């Protein structure tokens, strides 16, 4: 119950996380620009930004000044000293910064006024001059623009104390309304954490749910009637094993070619995993396999070189001595390229020259390197080797037992008769425990079986 609850929670949290992550990058994403507006207080005809305001959010700023329809407005950029010097004692509004992301804070400007003049300034210039002076054309401006009603200007912040002077010009002029627009790099910091974290939680939750379900089933299998799923479970697990071990009598017949392909990898695995189930099958299969293999081989190119290395896959490096081997060059290459490639090339290659294939076999055993040097061992040798394989591990029996049990279980399940004790499944090796090579073998089984005939050919 707890597991199910947790699973549900995880799934919900995962979905929520993904949704939130995506949302922060889409609907919840902040705007690419910051647009802030300064509304003048009404005193004076000029608005001046304080140093640093233009580059407040980004170096790139677009300035827009608007005055009542038909009036003239001028925007000028200059150093703060120049601008305030130009403004002189006229009243003006000072833009001091952002009070919010949408609003510029505006304060009556204090100007450069010196002490005494400041006093005067506070009295007299409070009255708005009837005519707005026009700063346009001054030598001091770095850049300027004039126009009617609305003017716009772009500016890339530069070192220095550059400020903006916006002036309503002419009779009855009013201070313009300023709008500063900055681009803003909008980060979506929650997108990937949300999606990945959510995905993780989701997957975890799903697995948990499955686990919960399974364990429940298993619990059921102990005492109660098996559910339909039950049959499914072993089926999903077994096919793989069947392929790997190829023990079942029917299987080889069903897929004669494939079964052979399957063995070699299995052999390779055997040593690692210790689950050398192969031996039994090997003796039986050789006979069948050989003839079949010989047939397809002919059309394939004689790229035996791939053959030897391929089977080992990762084992190749272990065989430094085999230098004398027929195709020394090819071997390393194959090992480097990786199994997939070697496998591909190998399948066909193996067939044409049975003897050549022989070396391939050793690798399957891992430590069997020396065999590399014996190109000719011929099928007989190979079979011998194959037979030897079982010896290394004494476990085959248990495995077999397990398999038998599984089969029994399966049959029991189908027959609605829970004959197998519940504890049984546990000993089964976890798929995760597979070694890389065994995993590769499984992969081969699943996808590449068709091509891999060397095992058969050897035999």
């Amino acid at each position: 119950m707890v597991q199910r609850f947790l699973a549900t929670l995880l799934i919900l949290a995962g979905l929520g996380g993904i949704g939130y992550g995506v949302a922060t990058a889409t609907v919840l994403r902040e705007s690419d620009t910051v647009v802030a507006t300064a509304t003048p207080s009404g005193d004076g005809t000029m608005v001046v930004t304080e140093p640093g305001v233009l580059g407040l959010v980004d170096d790139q700023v677009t300035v827009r000044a608007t005055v009542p329809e038909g009036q003239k407005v001028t925007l000028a950029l200059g150093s703060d000293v120049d601008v305030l010097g130009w403004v002189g004692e006229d009243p003006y509004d000072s833009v001091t910064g952002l009070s919010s992301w949408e609003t510029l804070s505006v304060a009556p400007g204090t100007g450069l006024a010196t002490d005494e003049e400041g006093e005067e300034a506070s009295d007299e210039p409070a009255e708005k001059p009837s005519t707005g002076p026009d700063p346009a054309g001054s030598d001091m401006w770095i850049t300027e623009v004039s126009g009617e009603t609305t003017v716009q200007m772009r500016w890339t912040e530069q070192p220095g104390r550059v400020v903006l002077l916006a002036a309503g010009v002419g009779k009855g002029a009013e201070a313009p309304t300023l709008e500063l627009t900055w681009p803003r790099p909008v980060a979506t910091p929650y997108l990937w954490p949300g999606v990945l974290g959510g995905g993780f939680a989701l997957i975890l939750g799903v697995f948990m749910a499955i686990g919960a379900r399974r364990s429940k089933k298993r619990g059921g299998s102990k005492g109660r009637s098996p559910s339909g799923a039950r049959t499914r479970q072993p089926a999903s697990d077994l096919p793989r094993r069947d392929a790997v071990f190829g023990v079942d009598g029917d299987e080889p017949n069903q897929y004669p070619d494939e079964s052979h392909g399957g063995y070699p990898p299995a052999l390779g695995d055997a040593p690692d995993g210790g689950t050398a189930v192969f031996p039994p099958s090997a003796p039986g299969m050789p006979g069948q396999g050989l003839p079949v293999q010989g047939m397809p081989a002919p059309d394939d190119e004689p790229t035996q070189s791939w053959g030897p290395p391929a089977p080992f896959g990762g084992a190749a490096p272990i065989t430094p001595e085999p230098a004398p081997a027929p195709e020394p060059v090819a071997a390393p290459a194959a090992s480097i390229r990786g199994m997939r490639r070697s496998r591909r090339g190998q399948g066909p290659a193996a067939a044409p020259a049975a003897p050549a294939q022989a070396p391939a076999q050793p690798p399957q055993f891992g430590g069997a390197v020396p065999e590399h040097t014996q190109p000719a061992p011929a099928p007989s040798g190979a079979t011998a080797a194959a037979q030897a394989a079982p010896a290394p591990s004494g476990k085959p029996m248990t495995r077999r037992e397990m398999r038998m049990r599984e089969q029994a279980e399966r049959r029991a399940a189908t027959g609605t008769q829970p004959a197998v004790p519940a504890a049984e499944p546990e000993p089964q090796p976890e798929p995760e425990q597979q070694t890389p090579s065994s995993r590769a073998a499984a992969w081969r089984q699943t996808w590449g079986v068709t091509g891999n005939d060397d095992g058969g050919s050897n035999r």
Partner: protein
Amino acid sequence: MLRSGALPATRRAVAGLTAVGAASVLLAGCTVEPPTPAPEAPVVAAVVSTSQERKILDRVSGAVQAADDATDAGTLAARLTGPALAMRQAELRVAEARGDNKLLTDLTFETQQVILPLEQGWPRSSFVITVQPPDNATPALAAFEQSSAREQYKLWGFVHLAPRVTMPRFAEAELGSPAVAADDTSLKASPQAAVEQYASVLTAGEDSRYTDNFAAADDDELRLQLRKSGANQVAQIEDKDGEGSFEVAYEPAKGPVKAVRTADGGAVVLAELLSLETLKAEEGWRLTPATPSAKALWGDAKGTDVMKIAFRNTVALYVPPAGSAEQIGLLGFHRVPYAVSNG
């Protein structure tokens, strides 16, 4: 296998939930405050940039050119002021009288050095030294002034540098050079005093009591020229068995002087001087000017035994810092006749 994985999974789930919870708490508390302005600290540097200065020079040149083309001094006031305006107007009068612009001083400012103002207030003055012009003339030193913030920069004065003169060094353009007050006391003589003393020296020559403050007359191009010009004119009279005399009188103009600090603590001073050259001959002589510009002003007037030509002069002096062993020296000058008289 599932069971074996279940415990860690549970733990992971709990951890995951905790993480999600923490993230949402973080998110909730995360409202980005708008930044506050972080202006650069004010620096002591030139208040005019080199590029601005270039713009100013071009604008001034353009205005001068426009006035030249129209031979109209009326529009000059927009970009010229002080001695430069008066002298350019005089030059234009000469040009008008002559019917051509050949005698007009070239006022395109191709600079080899700019000296930019350091003052944040007004007036502000900048100076430029032009490159050597192609016509064998010497480079010019021009002074510009912005008298108030809402005024434009205007050409205030210009001189041609004297041959063989070595300009003092100035601060880097970007750093700005401070202006020097007319009554500055850190110099061998205040700019105002230096100009007055120089006028005295020009007028009285070796007899001036300030003559020791100044470089030797042989090193002073203006005095050399005056001496030569006077001697020539007198010689011409004497060639014809006459007897003549040549006098020069200098006085500082009423306008302010302009001075800028040099790297060694001295100053370069620009000032306008008015001068009157009087050539006298015996009665019955008819004297007419020989120089093209004075000739143009003279026109068809009848000559008498007295010829007076009034000049506007702009002079540039180097005034060394107080205590220096150096003497005040002339850097350059420019003179334009603005009036002639036969009596």
